């Protein structure tokens, strides 16, 4: 059975193809269109998936969209009505936005792919999140918690997933919290208040939180109150996101927290305003964590299950995930590599396969490498055409040379195999560097990523020695598999891991199993032979404002216009002339 899953129209659209119960491929539209967070209908992603699997659209058994468009429209219209007459400005924009394309999904899919309407199915948004979290996790019976900004109406759901011995699968969502009461929207509102772009700047808020003290918790708690049944509600007097698309927070919010940050002003932590913003970030981060921990703890008590599957955009908050693991009572927390909306494409397809069609459960590959693969010889061709000297060598030599580069403090662009599905670079499209000094962190921020100083970089470490360098609780390695948890760096290693240790002594590490990315794993060991530490700085292979590179040519152009010293793709290694010591330069010339 061939099932295509699609997510689109809000942010980060994607397509995924499931054949006979297994995910064959999945890719975000932004990686192919090269438009960051591309929300357009993912035609390129769909075309790539079908072409990759040699599937004609007519032979698809179903195409599953990740939410119910009319139910979403119902929410948009109802919110406009509830806010009457304050919503008079937002109403035309909301209607044009919805009626232009978003409610005609069945027709759009049908016309693009030529599949009949009855083959087009719709999951609920949070069903897709739940399926992406549970059906891709190596567990038989788990509690499920999904939380994001908003789907149709739901903003947070809890439930259970179970695989039976006869191969049947069941996912039941028990309860939900509805819009406008939303943890994701609370966090996004602070993201906007702090001058970061919503749906993209939430990472920045999390990074900034490390520099602040949660001195404004009481103020944040005025915005979000706990209800008697253990859920929460927002005090809507402080928000505007439910009445207008123009602003997330109201004047009362500004009265409470002070003037918002202008997005063009840098955050200077030496100033009182800079510290206020950091404290704001720390406070909302703490409240988010506390709320999630309480909800998860109640879910654990109600289900008695040891495993929790976490889905939705909020599951990208690694600090909160680590606290859930430590304090909610669950022994293991599973977060898929793409817990956000892009991952819903895969979740929707898996949900249709297991639940709607009742197909037997199959073990889903436990890795994120479902995207386009590279042509091993492409870098050699490009470099040759442009007159650059390059090395073409076998794996062992390449890894040894790259380890030498890293040990010589060169920054390496690393392209290997199939592209990751999800927002994290987990070893196939990474920028790698020595993790030891703050100077390296500053150099990458300054010359490559062009981003704020307060944002940390992540380390990658072999799973077997991860707890030698990091304080991992039981279950921590699993959470670190896809960089989903933030853990403390052991104090004795912090001075040797300065580039990847955040100001609060933590790191969002990736604990790498050899089977997942063997070449990167071998590189870690080769680097250990030179430095004594098998840890590298691993950040996504892109520059500010760009999506992660997919093809070699994109890595090549990124390499040429940034401070990356070495580019490795397939069997080819290309070194920038200025990165070479003088002697080598002469030899190359």
């Amino acid at each position, binding site marked *: 059975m061939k099932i295509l899953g699609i997510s689109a129209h809000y942010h980060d659209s994607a397509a995924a193809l499931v054949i006979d119960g297994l995910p064959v491929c999945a890719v975000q539209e932004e990686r192919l269109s090269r438009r960051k967070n591309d929300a357009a209908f993912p035609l390129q992603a769909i075309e790539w998936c079908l072409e990759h699997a040699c599937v004609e659209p007519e032979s698809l058994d179903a195409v599953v969209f990740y939410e119910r468009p009319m139910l979403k429209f119902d929410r948009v219209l109802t919110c406009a009505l509830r806010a009457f007459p304050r919503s008079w400005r937002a109403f035309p924009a909301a209607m044009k936005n919805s009626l232009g394309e978003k409610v005609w999904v069945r027709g759009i899919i049908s016309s693009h792919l030529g599949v009949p309407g009855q083959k087009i199915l719709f999951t609920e948004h949070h069903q897709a999140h739940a399926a992406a979290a549970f059906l891709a996790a190596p567990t038989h019976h788990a509690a499920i918690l999904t939380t994001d900004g908003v789907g149709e109406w739901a903003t947070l759901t809890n439930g259970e997933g179970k695989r039976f011995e006869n191969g049947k699968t069941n996912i039941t969502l028990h*309860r939900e919290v509805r819009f406008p009461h939303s943890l994701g929207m609370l966090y996004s509102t602070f993201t906007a208040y702090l001058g970061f772009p919503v749906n993209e700047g939430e990472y920045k808020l999390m990074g900034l939180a490390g520099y602040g003290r949660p001195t404004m918790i009481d103020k944040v708690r005025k915005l979000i109150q706990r209800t008697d049944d253990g859920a929460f509600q927002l005090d809507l007097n402080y928000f505007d996101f439910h009445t207008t698309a123009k602003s997330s927070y109201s004047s009362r919010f500004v009265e409470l927290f002070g003037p918002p940050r202008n997005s063009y002003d840098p955050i200077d932590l030496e100033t009182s305003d800079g510290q206020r913003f950091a404290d704001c970030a720390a406070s909302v981060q703490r409240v988010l964590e506390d709320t999630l921990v309480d909800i998860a703890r109640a879910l654990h008590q109600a289900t008695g299950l040891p495993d929790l599957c976490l889905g939705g955009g909020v599951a990208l908050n690694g600090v909160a995930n680590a606290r859930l693991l430590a304090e909610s009572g669950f022994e293991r927390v599973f977060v898929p590599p793409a817990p956000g909306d892009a991952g819903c494409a895969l979740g929707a397809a898996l949900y249709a396969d297991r639940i709607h069609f009742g197909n037997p459960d199959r073990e889903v590959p436990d890795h994120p490498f479902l995207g386009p693969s590279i042509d091993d010889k492409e870098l050699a061709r490009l470099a040759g055409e442009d007159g650059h000297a390059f090395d073409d060598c076998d794996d062992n030599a390449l890894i040894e040379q790259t380890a030498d580069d890293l040990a010589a403090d060169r920054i390496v662009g690393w392209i290997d195999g199939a592209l990751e599905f999800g927002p994290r670079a987990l070893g196939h499209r990474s920028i790698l560097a020595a993790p030891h000094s703050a100077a390296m962190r500053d150099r990458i921020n300054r010359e490559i990523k062009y981003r704020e100083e307060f944002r940390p970089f992540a380390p990658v470490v072999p799973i077997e020695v991860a707890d030698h360098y990091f304080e991992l609780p039981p279950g921590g390695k699993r959470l670190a598999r896809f960089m989903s948890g933030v853990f403390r760096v052991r104090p004795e290693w912090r001075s040797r891991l300065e580039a990847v240790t955040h100001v609060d002594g933590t790191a969002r590490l990736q604990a790498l199993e050899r089977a997942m990315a063997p070449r990167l794993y071998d590189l870690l060991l080769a680097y250990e032979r030179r430095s004594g530490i098998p840890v590298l700085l691993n950040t996504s292979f892109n520059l500010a404002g760009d999506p992660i590179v997919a093809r070699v040519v994109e890595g090549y152009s990124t390499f040429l216009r940034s401070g990356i010293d070495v580019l490795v793709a397939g069997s080819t290694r290309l070194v920038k002339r200025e990165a070479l010591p003088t002697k080598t330069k002469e030899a190359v010339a």
Partner: protein
Amino acid sequence: MLAPIHRWVWRDQERRVQKLLRFGQTETDGGHDILRAAEMTPDPLLRRLYLKHAIDEYRHGEMFRRRGTDLLHTLSSRSEPAFQANWLAPGGHGLDDLNVEDESDKELLAFLHLSEKAAASRFTVYRDVLRSDEPTCAIFEEILHDEVFHMSYTLTQLARISPQHHRQHIWRARLSRLWKGYLRIATALAGVMGTLFLILQYFILLPPFALLAKRAARREQPGWIPISPDRNGSLNRQY
């Protein structure tokens, strides 16, 4: 001829900031598109030239952004200026609605040549009306210098890859710009009409439904809402 109008537009300090910041964004967007062209072209020489061009655009974007930010800090009050002078403005120097993947190098070079030419003539006017603001004037001066190179390489390369028909491509690109200009105006007009129509509907048709919706909202209890088992069922419905 339009210099007095431009002088009036740029005179307002806040509007100046907004325009510079918007230029910064437009140049960066243009850089993205040209970078994409560099990644798509099979021609190695074009790839190198596009890449240099893209890097220039990114640099211009950064220069505009920095200058805009510097001026922003000098503003005493930060109210919105009365007239932004941009609602019908074309993507201008950026490649706005150009879909790089669907264009051949010939079409792209012709389009780029005209865009650069148009931008150069506009930036010349801006430079001239901003003589009193030396740092901003210097930015336009520096960018104009790059634009000359961009105009020249796009034309040279177009003549190289299409020696017989390069003039035709330029004319086609001119017509395409005209058509896009018309579409932009038509879309803007349609948008205004649509908005007016929807606002009328909002105030005429919606009030009774709004009353019902508000009444229903008051009855809603905060907190958890149970999900009925049938919600976990059929995938055939959109509602």
